[in-house]
């Protein structure tokens, strides 16, 4: 058991050591050394995670929830705040995914960010992010969870506004951070609601006491869990707190791959899975989660078929897939949701990496309208994107099929009104196929654009004037802006290795949980979820078959539609857009959520701010409080000052008068 704790600590602290080393030694390292250092730290972390896996499996099944405590923060009355890690199958599962995928993304970034002047800073931030995420998933009590949660938000801000001289990037970073802080508030308040009844912050303790503390259908628990869900939705970019995710694509592509595909946005899913005993005691809250997850997957899918920025298509895809995961874990399909988390990490990171390669070939341009025909110029990238797309569209036997299928199976098995979510899920799967292959066909098939033709001749397109891809503003390539050179996968071995590994995982990763055949994920996570009423469910064979058929049909049909619209009949998409202009406008404007939030939240806040400054600050505080106090003091002192005339005889008269009064007093009093 001690070796398990040791491995857990090493996994957690290796990235932190990496950050500190990069921060201190950064100046002295040249070339790609910082990249290798950062990746080495992650490699140590991943190796330790694997060792932790073996150590965990060595323990007996009912001993697999180990708490490792470092020190007490505060043992005051009523609050047991310690720095404790909970090492159990769920956290080891998340640890492996986070450390593993992060390591591959670090590897990719060694080449991708090579010409950026902020290279060392990038790896320091990336390592810090991994440390925060590991802290979050290893947390053993609410306090450490909240700390990890906040750190992850801060790391996300640092990385989104990495190119800090770009106005669009800093604005996106602030937007992400503000929405995340809103989620933090929800999480902390929710924790308080729960803590008030259970009296302990420790996870295992809370889950044990949850039964008696929240007898019946407790309103407090439901309220607390809905607040916790606010936190989960903010972090996982679910409606209505999702507006930060597409803007977060302002960050470099490895950041999008790591944070906004594989790890940070999955924190909400992890949270719901971790708190499953509480969610099972408050089914209303779980239902809220399922409904929002379903809503998100549909809305995000519709937006993804309309937007034209390559990275934003993938971002909305992420939002949609996380919607599946949230729907899954809220409906009780814990293993399925986490399985989809794993496969999604693989194929989404792969898709982002491939997109990064394409964007590099376009010298920083991200607009799909300007891309086309890269198939011959970038065969490796095309292959990876194709694999990622097939996995995303859930075509068997790729990994995405098995995981998504499992979620839908268990959602349908719940019955009742969950059938609506079931249908919606398959509609979403159809949309997924459409937008995934729209993206691939538009970027890789068709007539090669100028950049693609250049690349076929062997020359990577290089922009003479660097511009912000979103606004067209001119930039230089100094610190705070992207580097002058771009790196594509075909030319960089580290990028190829990273993408290759993820491609293999995207193809074969699903085979660990094939219905009726293998149950690796289910079995592994069993000790964490043994207290769940919804875990051991065996859906009927007919439902399984129905799921397989529907899933395959939805995915393949989506691809076929994309093929017809964007490859066979090139003018068709334009005509459809004209016919359904209103619908297209709704989708392209992201369902006007940004405008809605602007009207509901931003404008009132601004009005309140200017009111506070113009009226309250100037009139009340400066005028009345500060001015009034000084005015009173001034008036008083000028009254007193009138006695200092400087007139000698006046002073002498006062002395005499005083003396006479004293004499009278003594005379009279006797």
């Amino acid at each position: 058991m001690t070796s398990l704790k040791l491995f857990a600590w090493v996994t957690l602290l290796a990235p932190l050591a990496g950050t500190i080393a990069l921060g201190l030694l950064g100046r002295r390292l040249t070339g790609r050394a910082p990249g290798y250092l950062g990746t080495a730290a992650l490699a140590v972390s991943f190796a330790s995670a694997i060792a932790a896996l073996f150590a965990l499996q060595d323990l007996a099944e009912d001993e697999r929830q180990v708490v490792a405590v470092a020190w007490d923060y505060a043992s005051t009355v009523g609050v047991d705040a310690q720095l404790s890690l909970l090492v159990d199958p769920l956290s080891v599962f998340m640890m492996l995914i986070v450390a593993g995928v992060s390591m591959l993304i670090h590897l990719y970034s060694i080449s991708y960010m090579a010409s950026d002047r902020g290279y060392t800073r990038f790896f320091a931030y990336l390592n810090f992010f991994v440390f925060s995420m590991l802290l979050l998933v290893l947390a053993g009590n609410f306090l450490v969870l909240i700390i990890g949660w906040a750190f992850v938000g801060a790391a996300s801000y640092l990385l989104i506004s990495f190119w800090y001289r770009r106005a669009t990037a800093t604005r996106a970073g602030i937007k992400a951070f503000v929405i995340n802080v809103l989620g933090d508030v929800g999480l902390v308040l929710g924790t308080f609601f729960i803590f008030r009844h259970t009296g302990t912050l420790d996870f295992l303790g809370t889950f044990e006491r949850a039964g008696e503390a929240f007898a019946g259908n407790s309103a407090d628990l439901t309220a607390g869990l809905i607040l916790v869900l606010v936190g989960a939705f903010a972090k996982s970019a679910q409606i209505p707190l999702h507006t930060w995710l597409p803007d977060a694509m302002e960050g470099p592509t490895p950041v999008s791959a790591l944070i906004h595909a594989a790890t940070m946005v999955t924190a909400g899913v992890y949270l719901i899975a971790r708190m499953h005993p509480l969610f099972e005691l408050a089914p209303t809250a779980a239902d809220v989660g399922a409904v929002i997850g379903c809503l998100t997957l549909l809305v995000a899918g519709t937006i993804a078929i309309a937007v034209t920025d390559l990275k934003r298509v993938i971002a909305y895809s992420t939002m949609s897939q996380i919607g599946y995961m949230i729907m899954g874990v809220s409906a009780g399909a814990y293993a399925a949701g986490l399985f989809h988390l794993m496969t999604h990490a693989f194929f989404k990171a792969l898709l982002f990496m491939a997109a990064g390669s394409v964007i590099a070939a376009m010298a920083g341009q991200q607009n799909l309208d300007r891309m086309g025909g890269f198939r011959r110029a970038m065969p490796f990238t095309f292959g990876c994107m194709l694999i990622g797309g097939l996995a995303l569209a859930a075509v068997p036997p790729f990994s995405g099929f098995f995981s998504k299928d499992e979620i839908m199976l268990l959602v349908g098995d719940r019955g009742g009104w969950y059938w609506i979510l079931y249908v919606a899920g398959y509609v979403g799967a159809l949309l997924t196929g459409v937008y995934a292959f729209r993206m691939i066909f538009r970027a890789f098939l068709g007539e090669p654009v100028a950049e693609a033709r250049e690349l076929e001749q062997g020359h990577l397109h290089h922009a003479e004037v660097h511009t912000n891809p979103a606004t067209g503003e001119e930039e230089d390539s100094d610190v705070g802006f992207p580097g002058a050179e771009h790196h594509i996968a075909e030319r960089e071995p580290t990028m190829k290795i990273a993408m290759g590994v993820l491609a293999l995982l995207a193809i074969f990763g699903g085979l660990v949980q094939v219905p009726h055949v293998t149950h690796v994920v289910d079995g592994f996570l069993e000790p964490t979820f043994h207290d769940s009423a919804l875990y051991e469910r065996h859906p009927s064979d007919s439902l399984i078959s129905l799921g397989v058929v529907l899933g395959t049909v939805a995915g393949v049909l989506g691809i076929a539609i994309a093929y017809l619209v964007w490859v066979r009949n090139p003018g068709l998409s334009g005509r459809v857009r004209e016919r359904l202009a209103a619908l297209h406008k709704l989708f392209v404007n992201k369902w006007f959520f940004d405008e809605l939030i602007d009207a509901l939240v931003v404008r009132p806040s601004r009005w309140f701010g200017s009111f506070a400054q113009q009226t309250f600050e100037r009139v009340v505080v400066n005028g009345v409080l500060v001015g009034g106090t000084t005015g009173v003091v001034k008036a008083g002192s000028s009254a007193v000052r009138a006695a200092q005339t400087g007139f000698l005889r006046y002073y002498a008269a006062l002395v005499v008068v005083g003396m006479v009064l004293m004499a009278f007093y003594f005379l009279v009093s006797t």
Partner: protein
Amino acid sequence: MDIGWYLTVSALIFAIGAAGVLTRRSPLVILLCIELMLNAANLALIAFARMHGDPDGQIFAIIVMVVAACEVTIGLGIIVAMHRRRLPINVDELRELQG
């Protein structure tokens, strides 16, 4: 003789001195009036000393005279300084030390 007479004289001289301090404008005259007040007090002290047969009052009167002498020295020094700087020798006009 009755002590009352001596005290009355002392009080009268004191009052005259006080009135002089309050009404005269020249610092030299004010110093003179202060001397008057001090001597009035001396008179009272000696009268009481004679009444009680106690020499303490007379000793105290001598001390008062010493103090008066020192104070007049300083006061005259200030007046000479004022004259040297061509300041008006008039307490009404010297009022810069005010609030």
